[in-house]
């Protein structure tokens, strides 16, 4: 009997890549897709995998590897798919050498994202086939199938997951790796060079491919009709399928493993066999709108929301008319995520708050600088946007106005797309102040390396990109590296540089409090006899500090890492540092 193991959806996809004989994989970390690469690296004796600086790069690496003749892969969260959209739309025209597969992870319910976009919409626009598994076993199986489809139809294929699938564990049966022989590289300018004259011919082929795939999909075993009671028929896919099985065990189901292109004939046939047809899909009505466009009557978003995650209870309420009695208590304070105790970002933000500066923010743990009690970050769109937004603010309101502004961007986010924006500031003569929050790691996604950390996904030690040298190379003269925990030094340099009539970059540097580099036995402890109960130390909201009933403070020794921010804020020597 083969081995069975409990695996995360993401872990199962990594296993599927290994078993499918994939040789090159590239990715930028993004919740909920990150663990795919983190698990893939265990197979590094059989394949190459890397962290790329961004998703566009990752998709292009996968394309190159594919036309060079090996099975290739890139993965990303759904907003990363936008970054990768440029190569992806054209790769749909060029097609593949050996199979090329992308995994794109959606986040219904916004557990860790800035929007709730639907990967199926983007993929439809890009003419890319999409597979959607319902559990870990299917995640592994469909990953392997995706390569067969990619090679048979000469298309990159997307595996769409959601947070619930990516971060759920299920039992998976392991198989051995199947080595796939490399395909000889073929010089094929008409196919691989997207000049207008070539692309116009490729577009004809793209349309033919999608039509053929749509017809063939009617007999794919992953598009499965489960006929039971014909009173209710549900068309569904992915995790929502499991809710249907839970809440409506007697209903007939058309379970779609391929959600683009849709198997039209199979859907028409299923619709004709059931009395009431319901489309049950999270986020956008992608399947529903197509079904309706074919003149088939169905229910969908008239019953279910476009927002957040679905559940079995939702079906019990909306389809069966049951009332769910269990409701949450009403008086529960929220518990939003916060910056960790001893986080270097808190120290930097405190300086910016004290100086009453406006702050354009970016994507990372430090976006939490928008949350009380700090509330310093005033804008945040997407990766890299802080620097370009600041530039736009300056161009709109002038150099004097910009003296009340800075932008903040993490080290990994700066490498991702911040660099382009900084080039723009140099080129178009901005006088803004850019603060790189350099915590030596990609933090929010769970500590991945990046081009500035000096280590690769496969563990190789490499040259770390040096921010000072990098900025000097762009022609920026005023670049300053400061210890992020040093309130006095940081205050001085920020105060000076925001008022200056030139572009400057400040690197606020200190390792993330959670990584080994930051490990310390240092602690801060209260000195109660000096404390006047003013509360200044608690204002930045460090979770290790708490106010006692009498106004004195306690510092939790299990949480404190001796960052000394509280000590620097105390004017009465009522906090001291111990080793």
């Amino acid at each position, binding site marked *: 009997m083969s081995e069975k193991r409990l695996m995360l959806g993401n872990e199962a996809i990594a296993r599927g890549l290994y078993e499918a004989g994939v040789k090159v994989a590239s990715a930028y970390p993004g919740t909920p897709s990150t663990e795919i690469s983190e698990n893939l690296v265990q197979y590094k004796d059989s394949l190459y995998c890397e962290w790329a600086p961004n998703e566009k790069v990752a998709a292009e690496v996968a394309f190159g590897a594919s036309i060079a003749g090996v099975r290739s892969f890139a993965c990303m969260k759904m907003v990363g798919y936008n970054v990768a959209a440029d190569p992806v739309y054209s790769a749909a025209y060029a097609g593949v050498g050996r199979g090329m597969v992308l995994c794109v992870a959606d986040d219904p319910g916004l557990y*860790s994202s800035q929007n709730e976009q639907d990967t199926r919409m983007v993929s439809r626009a890009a003419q890319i086939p999409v597979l959607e598994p319902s*559990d870990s076993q299917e995640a592994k199986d469909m990953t392997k199938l995706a390569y067969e489809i990619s090679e048979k139809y000469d298309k990159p294929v997307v595996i769409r997951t959601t947070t619930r699938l990516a971060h759920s564990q299920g039992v998976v049966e392991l198989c051995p790796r199947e080595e796939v022989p490399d395909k000889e590289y073929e010089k094929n300018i008409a196919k691989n060079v997207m000049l207008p004259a070539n692309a116009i011919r490729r577009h004809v082929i793209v349309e033919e491919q999608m039509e053929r795939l749509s017809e063939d999909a009617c007999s794919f075993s992953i598009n499965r009709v489960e006929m039971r009671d014909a009173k209710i028929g549900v068309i569904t896919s992915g995790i929502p399928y499991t809710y249907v099985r839970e809440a409506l065990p007697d209903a007939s189901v058309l379970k779609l493993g391929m959600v683009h292109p849709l198997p039209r004939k199979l859907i028409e046939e299923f619709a004709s066999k059931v009395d009431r047809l319901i489309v049950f899909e999270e986020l956008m009505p992608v399947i529903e709108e197509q079904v309706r466009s074919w003149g088939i009557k169905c229910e969908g978003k008239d019953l279910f929301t476009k927002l957040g995650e679905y559940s079995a209870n939702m079906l019990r309420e909306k389809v069966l008319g049951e009332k769910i009695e269990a409701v949450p208590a009403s008086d529960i304070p929220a518990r939003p995520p916060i910056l960790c105790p001893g986080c270097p970002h808190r120290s930097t933000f405190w300086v910016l708050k004290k100086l009453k500066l406006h702050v354009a923010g970016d994507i990372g743990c430090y976006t939490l600088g928008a949350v009380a009690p700090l509330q310093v970050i005033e804008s945040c769109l997407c990766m890299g946007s802080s620097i370009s937004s600041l530039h736009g603010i300056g161009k709109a309101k002038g150099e004097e106005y910009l003296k009340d502004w800075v932008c903040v961007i993490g080290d990994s986010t700066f490498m991702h797309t911040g660099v382009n924006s900084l080039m723009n500031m140099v080129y178009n003569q901005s006088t803004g102040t850019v603060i790189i929050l350099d915590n030596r790691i990609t933090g929010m996604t769970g500590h991945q390396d990046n081009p500035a950390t000096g280590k690769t996904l496969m563990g190789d030690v490499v040259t770390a990109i040096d921010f000072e040298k990098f900025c000097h190379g762009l022609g920026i003269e005023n670049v300053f590296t400061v210890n992020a925990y040093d309130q006095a030094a940081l205050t001085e340099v920020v105060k000076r540089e925001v008022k200056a009539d030139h572009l400057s970059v400040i690197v606020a540097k200190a390792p993330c409090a959670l990584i080994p580099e930051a490990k310390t036995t240092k602690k801060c402890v209260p000195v109660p006899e000096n404390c006047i109960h003013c509360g200044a130390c608690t204002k930045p909201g460090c979770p290790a500090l*708490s106010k006692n009933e009498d106004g004195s403070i306690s510092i939790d020794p299990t949480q404190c890492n001796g960052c000394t921010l509280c000590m620097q804020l105390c004017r009465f020597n009522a906090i001291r540092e111990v080793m």
Partner: protein
Amino acid sequence: MKTRNIMIVGVGGQGTLIASRILGYIATAAGYDVKLSEVHGMAQRGGSVVTFVRYGDKVEEPIVEPGQADVLIAFERLEAKRYAHYLKPDGVLICNDTRIDPMPVRIGTAKYPENILEDIAKDHTVYKADATEIALGLGNARCFNVVILGMAARHMDYSVEDWYAAIEHTVKPKTIELNKKAFDAGYQLTGE
């Protein structure tokens, strides 16, 4: 067997993932179909986190829904209150009797509710203990999660040996002995 629904709730960073993985391992080793659902990402930075573990002959959905939990394991009182409505009428709450103030309470925009466990005890069976204190006594505050798991184990159908095996396969090798001690300490608590 009918599917059993277990939930572990707490504050991001408290170690809910390790506890759920121990549970997942023990149910898989017993030959059940198992699904586990975890929270990664932003909420792990001190936010409210929930993990679902379901096991039985055939498990469909990976989450536990309101009104369905057989056992709710809470690492903190406020989180017990937040998820108490997930319990079945005959469901059991196992709670670490400790308080961690969320930011709105710390900055004075919200009040930490009083009498949380007393209120839940009106509708459900509640077992509680200050597991953090017990873990500190064992020399490492962080292993309180396994102390609580030990308490919960009294309400599940596995032997102590099964639990030991699950711990051995799940935690870091260096911490196996500590975690077994933590489990024993929790298993001996009645929590009433």
